[in-house]
């Protein structure tokens, strides 16, 4: 009875034959998945050029209107002036103004519609999910339990929770899909006076971004389109003069956040093979322990005359 560790290992090894096969198959398919997230067939998105934006915020008002949202006047009860994304605001213009005199820049923030969205990776019942065709990341009211995990997982801090009321929603940009269905463009792109933000298929926007970089070398930070590969690639793309990090677009590397952080988690739970294997081993060992324990308890019962406690 004493050398249980060895016993534990051998039982696991014995029951392991079949399960090991399952695990290998599991990790095999997983390797296929690691080649980067798949790009939806009809991926659409936004291209925002921070060097063109004049900060008029027409897009902010248009966004609220297009989504049937009451203007957020909570700031001064007069103007629609949200300070950040919130439960009434899916789209916001912020100003980055460094104190050291280096160039300032506006930045438009809304959902990036990541190719491998962290929000959806964490959402327990798939209330947030990525449309397989358009790649738009949707929120479904009747699957959301209001856990607010998405407000923690999203690397761009986009989804916002409604803090007041008994029936709270999660608010995020869904690329005005109701307008797309009518053949219209998203609210923000339809009003922008300068063309700083445009809508289109992701491939077209990417080519356009690269064309601009080529045309005016040195104008854009690192000569790069943010979102081409960042965080596994996103469908909202950015061009900027100032470092992206300063605009709230962190340098996350080419691997998406879920891929990077949940790799082992995903491998462990793949097909439930490893947990099942562990379970089988545990049952073997415990069966024997229980038998021994019951015997001892009954002996003790005979000794003391008191009913065995198990």
């Amino acid at each position, binding site marked *: 009875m004493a050398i249980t560790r060895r016993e534990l290992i051998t039982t696991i090894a014995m029951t392991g034959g079949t399960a090991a096969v399952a695990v290998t198959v599991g990790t095999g398919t997983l390797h296929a998945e690691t080649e980067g997230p798949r790009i939806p067939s009809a991926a659409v998105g936004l291209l925002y050029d921070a060097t063109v934006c004049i900060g008029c915020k027409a897009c902010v008002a248009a966004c609220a209107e297009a989504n049937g949202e009451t203007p957020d006047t909570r700031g001064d009860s007069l103007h629609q002036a949200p300070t950040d994304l919130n439960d009434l605001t899916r789209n916001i213009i912020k100003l980055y103004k460094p104190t050291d005199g280096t160039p300032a820049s506006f930045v438009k923030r809304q959902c990036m519609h990541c190719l491998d969205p962290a929000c959806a*990776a964490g959402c327990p019942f798939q209330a947030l999910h990525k449309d397989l065709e358009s790649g738009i990341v949707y929120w479904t009211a009747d699957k959301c339990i209001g856990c*607010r995990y998405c407000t923690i997982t999203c690397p761009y801090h986009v989804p916002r929770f409604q803090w007041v009321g008994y029936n709270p929603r999660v608010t995020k940009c869904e690329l005005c899909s109701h307008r797309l269905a009518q053949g219209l463009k998203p609210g923000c792109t339809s009003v922008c006076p300068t063309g700083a933000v445009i809508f289109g298929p992701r491939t077209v926007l990417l080519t356009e971004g690269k064309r601009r970089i080529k045309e005016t070398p040195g104008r854009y930070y690192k000569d790069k389109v943010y979102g081409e590969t960042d965080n596994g690639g996103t469908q909202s793309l950015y061009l900027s003069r100032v470092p992206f990090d300063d605009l709230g677009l962190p340098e996350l590397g080419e691997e998406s*956040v879920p891929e990077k952080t949940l790799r082992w988690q995903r491998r462990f739970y793949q097909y439930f093979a490893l947990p099942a294997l562990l379970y089988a081993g545990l049952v073997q060992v415990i069966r024997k322990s229980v038998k021994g324990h019951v015997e001892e308890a009954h002996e003790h019962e005979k000794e003391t005359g008191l009913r065995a406690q198990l």
Partner: protein
Amino acid sequence: MSAITTSQFKTEDRWERAVPVFGFPVVTRFFLVLMALTLVALVLTGYRELAGLGPVSGMNDAFGWGIWKTFNVMVLTALGSGAFAVGIAAWVFRRKKLHALMRMALLTSFLAYASGLLLLGIDAGRPWNFYWIVFPWKWNMHSPLAEVAICMSIYAMIPLAVENLPPVLERLWYFDSRLRPGVEKMEKHLHSVFPYVIALAYLLPGMHQSSLGALMLLAGERVHPLWQSPFLPLLYVWAACFMSFGCVAGCTMLCCLVWKRAMDMDVLDEAARITCGLIYGWAALRLLDIAFREQLGTAFHFDRFAGVFWLEMLMIVGGGYLLQRSVRTHERDKMFMGYVLSSVGGMIYRFSPTTLAFRPNPQALYFPATIEVLVSLGFIAMGVAGFLFAVKKFAILPGPLYLWHDMASYFRFRRPYIRWTGYFKYGFFGEDEELTNNPHE
């Protein structure tokens, strides 16, 4: 304090049997305070359901999670992992002495999980959508949060509840001889499924206690590098192991003090030895991990993160050292302090990644609101009240054999006016009196 410092240990003090706490009323002033706190929390919960989370809590867009999740669930279920940690030591690694602590472990786990899960439901903004839990194909299998929510509820409702049945059945057996054939039949069924249930009761908590750590993996660099690590899930379960050992053994010691029971130092030494080993292993893994990620330097920055880090490490390792010493010198007060220190240190560790070391943006602040704290306290009070009730009504706390006989005579002679005492019917001893050999007679 003399009771706790004396170290002479007599063999008849060996813990051989779980004995209910007798001679103390259930309803005391302290118990009433607990009930009042619980009641206040329940009323405030009603208000929270109508008003939403904003008006009752300090949560905001940056800190989407408040103490209900980060303390009552993340921290307290770690303390309540005794059924998992002590259970594995007793059943899988066959540390037989620890069986004496099993009932305490099972009870504390059940209460911690039940109270945590209830609060998890209250913390959810749209709890009615939890019904998706019955459609496994709608689960997001790779989400750590789904793992936690689903696995935790199943664990508390099935294996943990079943494991807690024996003391209840036992009470029924003693309660009335007419119930005995039925109870015995149920016990037989129970024993035949026990291995499968117990194995599940180790697999599931292993999964969700680690997933609690995996929750913050997705938050990436917003969690300070001293905490954020690919090993977070492993460190989380591991911390739960030594914390719950501390909770089970520490609570048992405290109960023995309060209700004047003998302590079985054989069992307590064994628990302390294991806890101390767990603590040193955990600390080594954590330091190695930080060193390999080349973040050791951040521990010497003069900021609050480094402060919290050293506080955690000193409390946990200091507690481990006290435990190690107490095993050698048999100083019970050192042992108790060791458990308290290491468990509180572990609590801070489990709390940090979501709150103290979470930096969503430089201006973000979170401080729990009054109502939030009251509700959190109320749910803890509920668990404590449940514990006090259970140890007085059921055979949970371990005790020496003579205590069982003391209890029998207490009920027979001191309070003969009570006909139904639960364990002994008036004038009837429960067991065959001729066969019991009471060493005191």
